[in-house]
């Protein structure tokens, strides 16, 4: 047995955009155990239900995270709408779907950029984020915001997109798709990239189920599950396959996210083709009374929203089970036995969002 050392990793580390701390137990250069600590950006957002009414709380919950902010707002609204037993207009469902897929696009491009930066490909990082900027521009044009959008409302959405804007977006996505395809070739074909990702961070199918992996982390271990298949928003009207990989390693996770980018382009095109005319919001009166669970597929995987209401304007409980929280257990598993030098990349391959995790 080699010499054992405990190396503190984070909360401040060049590869971590957000703070998480790991105590890494090393035996020479191998990680034997990783013990995470979180809470550096814990804001107690879930406790603010006692200070904000259920309509205002929407603006709190979408500030859970700067990347999935749209989906946090939408998941919460869907849970409250379920308690009210309100069906939102079809056009609102399609608009939510389009914004969801735009969120997935910019999240996956952000992740690809961070990955490129982590293995030292700075130009690739800039290229990925240049693409992402275009999507943020589209968010700004359609919602007025680049990070926090505030377009969801209990009962629908607050802003519409006219057909000229939607067609303009599709044309932009068409040209972007060719550029992204060129970029992603580097991730999938480059020798150096493969050498850092292939056969690193193995998570078998059984381990992924056992440890509660979700999203691309789970699908890269060969599990064919995608919450969008539940048919919420307009997903029930759109054709898409579930993207999986049997690689079970970091390369597989990268491949799944890349293919999901192209899938999002396709879903947006389909949604724009099929979006019906009509209202974008229905009036919702009174206060919610009851409880509801809602599942949504965020870019990082399945998120679960739970809302419990008591008939007053203040809720009893609002909870988000975020994908990163449940992907921490698989992360601890893939870190066991890895080389110390691979730790930053392995943390990145779960696409961690610590703000989401801590809320």
């Amino acid at each position, binding site marked *: 047995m080699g010499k054992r050392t405990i190396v503190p990793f984070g909360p401040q580390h060049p590869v971590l955009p957000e703070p998480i701390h790991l105590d890494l137990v090393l035996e020479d250069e191998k990680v034997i155990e990783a013990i995470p*600590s*979180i809470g550096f950006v814990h804001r107690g957002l*879930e*406790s603010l239900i006692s200070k904000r009414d259920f309509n205002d709380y929407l603006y709190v919950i979408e500030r859970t995270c700067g990347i999935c902010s749209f989906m946090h707002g939408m998941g919460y609204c869907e849970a409250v709408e379920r308690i009210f037993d309100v069906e939102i207009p079809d056009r609102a469902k399609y608009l939510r779907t389009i914004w969801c897929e735009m969120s997935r696009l910019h999240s996956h491009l952000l992740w690809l950029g961070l990955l490129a930066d982590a293995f030292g490909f700075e130009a690739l990082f800039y290229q990925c984020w240049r693409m992402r900027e275009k999507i943020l521009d589209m968010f700004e044009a359609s919602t007025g915001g680049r990070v926090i959008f505030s377009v969801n409302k209990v009962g629908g959405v607050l802003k519409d997109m006219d057909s000229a804007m939607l067609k303009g977006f599709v044309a932009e996505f068409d040209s972007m798709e060719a550029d992204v395809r060129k970029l992603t070739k580097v991730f999938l074909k480059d020798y150096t990239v493969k050498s850092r990702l292939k056969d690193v961070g193995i998570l078998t199918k059984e381990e992924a189920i056992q440890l509660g992996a979700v999203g691309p982390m789970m699908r890269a271990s060969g599990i064919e599950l995608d919450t969008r298949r*539940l*048919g919420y928003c307009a997903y*029930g009207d759109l054709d898409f396959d579930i993207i999986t990989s049997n690689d079970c390693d970091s390369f597989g996770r990268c491949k799944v996210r890349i293919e999901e980018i192209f899938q999002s382009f396709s879903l947006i095109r389909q949604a724009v083709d099929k979006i019906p005319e009509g209202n974008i919001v229905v009036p919702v009166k009174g206060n919610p009374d009851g409880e509801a669970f809602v599942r949504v597929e965020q870019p990082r995987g399945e998120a679960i929203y739970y809302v*419990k209401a008591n008939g007053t304007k203040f809720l009893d409980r609002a909870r988000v*089970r975020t994908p990163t929280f449940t992907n921490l257990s698989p992360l601890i598993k893939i870190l066991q036995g890895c080389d110390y030098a691979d730790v930053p990349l392995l943390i990145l391959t779960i696409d961690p969002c610590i703000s989401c995790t801590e809320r």
Partner: protein
Amino acid sequence: MREQYELIVIRHEDLLETAKTMKDEGARLVQICSVSTKEGFELSYSFAKGYDFINYRIVMDADTQITSISDFYPSASLYENEMSELFGVKIEGMQLDYRDQLYMIDAETPFKGGN
């Protein structure tokens, strides 16, 4: 299309048996959620079998101690540590017990009823 799910109330003594059954049936543990009530806690253990979503509800007082299901589902440890640190739920037998160090926060059980 709105997802349909089950919500089944169980006694806290039946939790381990329920978790074992779910595990044997190949279900994933997707979340454990705690709600503080006047009397104590309402815990929801959510499992997914494929796309089926099944929730088991335990209603208990604040002094009741439950047994960890981390022997069946290792991923339960994080949820259980969260419930223990933020809500003050008493849990025995956690495979991985952070002893109030998962969340690096000063407040003790900030989400416990009455806090």
